[in-house]
């Protein structure tokens, strides 16, 4: 499989006009804080974003804790007109995008026009909008439903709100890839830039906490009582979270032309599907394994070059067991440092891998690995070099962002220090000549 992977990828890379893709701006709305600095400070300190849900009554669900975003006032970031036409999910996305654009030092004139695109991920989109519509319809009848509220629903709108705000006139697209949506968005955004269809892409994902979806996760038996313990032997499930992570991606030429600071380079992306079960990962992690290996190979590096893995690590028994198996298979006996941020943020579903991507970029910037909080008891089935309970510093030239999602979606994206990855013009030859990882037998 790995040998074949090289055969497929090398000519494909050679066929495209290649450019480096840089991350030049970051924006965050999270239960740990608003803005990249507040977010990162909390992450490094291992703070918890969990609290008792205030947004809706959890009634007799027997679960009431989530990573709910507090203190978010849409009008602090959005105009009155924008606030009127957005639900909470879009408002998160737009607020985080404004932060990211400011962080990147991009003016409206930089973004205006057809060369700027917006690609966003989500799982449920404007779930609060449809929740309110359904509530009105069921409780007060159809006549009480206001027609002007109806068009506010639709995941289609997420990137459109952002495109309007920044004058972007290129492609607008929503990729609802469940819990891998952030990585899907970043991967496709990088593809658009590499294939010459855009110079700048505002990418990332947004998600909100909503009653029906929360109840659904509880009924699936996936929600822990009060804390999330990724990779711990006694883990009891996930804690649902919400928020938005937005990244500004730029072509190297565009970033250089305007003198931007490259925070990180977007490396290769691996996308695969388990085709196994709608909510459970493949027991041997076949899709996830393909995605991890592909992200490494497409970056023009080997597993030995990867310094840190920001794991999906949901805190559910099935995910963590399979993900640990896959990481061990990819890295062999080398104990690559691994961490899951869901002990702090919870599982922000569509936004999860976007928020974690933001953290990957900051890891590359600072050399700090976020901690896996609430880790107490090692699990022999999750035998990893975990960054347990306290953040750690280390080499962070190349890091991987893992996501394994609902529907069997697997997506992995690599981030690297600018200039650390091979020159794209030489990448095809390098990929073709690279030696397969020692653990290649798994899929051969």
């Amino acid at each position, binding site marked *: 499989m790995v040998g074949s992977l090289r055969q497929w990828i090398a000519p494909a890379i050679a066929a495209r006009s290649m450019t480096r893709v840089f991350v030049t701006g970051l924006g965050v709305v999270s239960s740990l804080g608003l803005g990249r600095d507040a977010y990162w400070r909390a992450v490094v300190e291992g703070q918890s974003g969990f609290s008792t849900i205030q947004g809706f009554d959890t009634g*007799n669900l027997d679960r009431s804790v989530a990573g709910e975003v507090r203190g978010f006032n849409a009008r602090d970031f959005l105009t009155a007109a924008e606030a009127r036409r957005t639900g909470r999910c879009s408002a998160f996305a737009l607020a985080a995008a404004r932060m990211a654009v400011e962080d990147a030092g991009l003016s409206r004139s930089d973004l205006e026009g057809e060369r700027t695109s917006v690609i966003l991920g989500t799982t449920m989109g404007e779930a609060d909008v449809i929740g309110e519509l359904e509530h009105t319809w069921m409780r007060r009848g159809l006549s009480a439903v206001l027609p002007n509220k*109806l068009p506010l629903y639709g995941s289609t709108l997420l990137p459109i709100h952002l495109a309007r705000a920044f004058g972007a006139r290129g492609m607008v697209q929503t990729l609802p890839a469940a819990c891998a949506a952030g990585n899907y968005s970043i991967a496709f955004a990088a593809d658009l830039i590499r294939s010459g269809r855009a110079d700048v892409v505002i990418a990332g994902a947004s998600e909100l906490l909503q009653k029906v979806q929360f109840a659904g996760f509880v009924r699936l038996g996936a929600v822990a009582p009060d804390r999330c313990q990724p990779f711990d032997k006694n883990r009891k499930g996930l804690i649902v979270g919400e928020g938005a992570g937005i990244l500004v991606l730029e072509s190297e030429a565009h970033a250089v032309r305007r003198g931007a600071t490259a925070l990180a380079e977007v490396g290769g992306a691996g996308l695969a599907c388990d085709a196994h079960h709608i909510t459970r990962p493949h027991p041997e992690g076949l899709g996830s394994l393909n995605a991890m290996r592909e992200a490494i190979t497409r970056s023009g590096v080997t597993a030995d070059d990867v310094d840190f893995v920001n794991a999906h690590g949901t805190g559910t028994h099935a995910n963590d067991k399979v993900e640990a198996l896959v990481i061990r298979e990819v890295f062999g006996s080398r104990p690559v440092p691994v961490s899951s941020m869901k002990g702090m943020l919870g599982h922000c579903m569509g936004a999860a891998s976007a928020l974690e991507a933001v953290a990957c970029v900051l890891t590359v910037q600072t050399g700090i690995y976020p901690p896996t909080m609430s880790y107490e008891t090692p699990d022999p089935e999750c035998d990893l070099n975990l960054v347990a309970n306290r953040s750690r510093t280390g080499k962070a030239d190349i890091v991987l962002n893992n996501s394994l999602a609902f529907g069997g979606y697997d997506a992995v994206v690599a981030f690297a220090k600018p200039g650390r990855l091979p020159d794209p013009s030489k990448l095809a030859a390098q990929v073709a000549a690279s030696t397969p990882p020692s653990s290649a037998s798994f899929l051969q």
Partner: protein
Amino acid sequence: MKPCAITGLGLVSPLGVGYDALVAALRAQDAAPTDIFHNHPTLLDPETLGVTPLAAECHDFDPKLYLGDKGLRNLDRLTKMLVVSAKFALEHAGLKRDGVHTLSPERVGLCSATAYGSLEAITEAAHVTELEDPRFLNPNRFPNTVINASAGYVSIWEDLRAPNVTVVDGNCGALDAVLSSETHLLYGRADAFVVGGGEALSIPLYLAFHKLGVLADGERVFAPGRRESQGMRLGEGAAYLCLETPEGAKKRGAQVRAYVVGYGNAFEPPESEAVLVHVSATAVQRAIRMALSDAGLQPRDIDVVASAVSGIAHFDAAELAGIETALGPEVAVVAPKAVFGETFGASGAFAMASAVAWFEGLRVGPLVQGKRPEVLKHVLALAVGYYGNATAVILRRAGA
């Protein structure tokens, strides 16, 4: 873009299941039109709706005929239509023979569009949560509320292990899925992609558009592309096309039905901050021009436009204005939605399927303007969103 070969099609539509059935039905419709919109939709109870609905429902669709009895209980209607469409498309393309993959399943991906997902499942879950008790939510059906559930199920049923992408771009979804697939094909992430989308009729979907006053129900005139039209009519269905690189298709000896040769997409905001819903003639025009440039073609090279006109007169007028600016007043414009109704996320796939059928000899229609071309080489499929976005895809006849 580098041309992609279309090697197979699979559809579930009110006119039948499978590409061949669809073509036969369209041929029959052309000879002696029947109004499928007056075929009373069983999914839409007039008592619940408070109106007599007119919609194109897939009346005769019985998933058990194609998928067997087992494993269907927890699937929603959208998923069943998509799974059956994928099954037909893969067999039609020869990517499966008698249910067995002819390529490695790790080399076949899926890119599936839907605008609204399963409103049926979302409403069911909301009903239980609102009016009963959230503890009674059915955990086996709850996953259907997640918008990529249908594509996830297609991958499971058909064992498709390359990238699985769900696209939500409203009416533009299925055409935008083409670019996504082309990108993944050219980056070597798959050898073949199943591309298209689906949309299912449901009471909340019908009610929402009825409430917006844009449906041609009752005595209102339904005439897509015409000034006198008083609204659109909803349809439902699913349509997938199999895309491959021409080299890949040739290597496995596949029959190429047509090529996708150009893609363009544009977004234009409305002039007023207070406006949300609008159709932009400028976006339509830019999307078409971008697709022409992408394909290396001139406006005169487009023989027919498989348009997105749906019957909402002011939207149709804006779209036709965009087409005229980009392609001139003479180009032939067809209204596939006069046949299929508005199928949102699936509509672009139905437009592309229509184009393939025209390339293969079906009479082009129903025409909104212009004349049927004597020689058909290029069809431009158009999708127009409600928020200022538009997408164009150019298809070329195989062997042209």
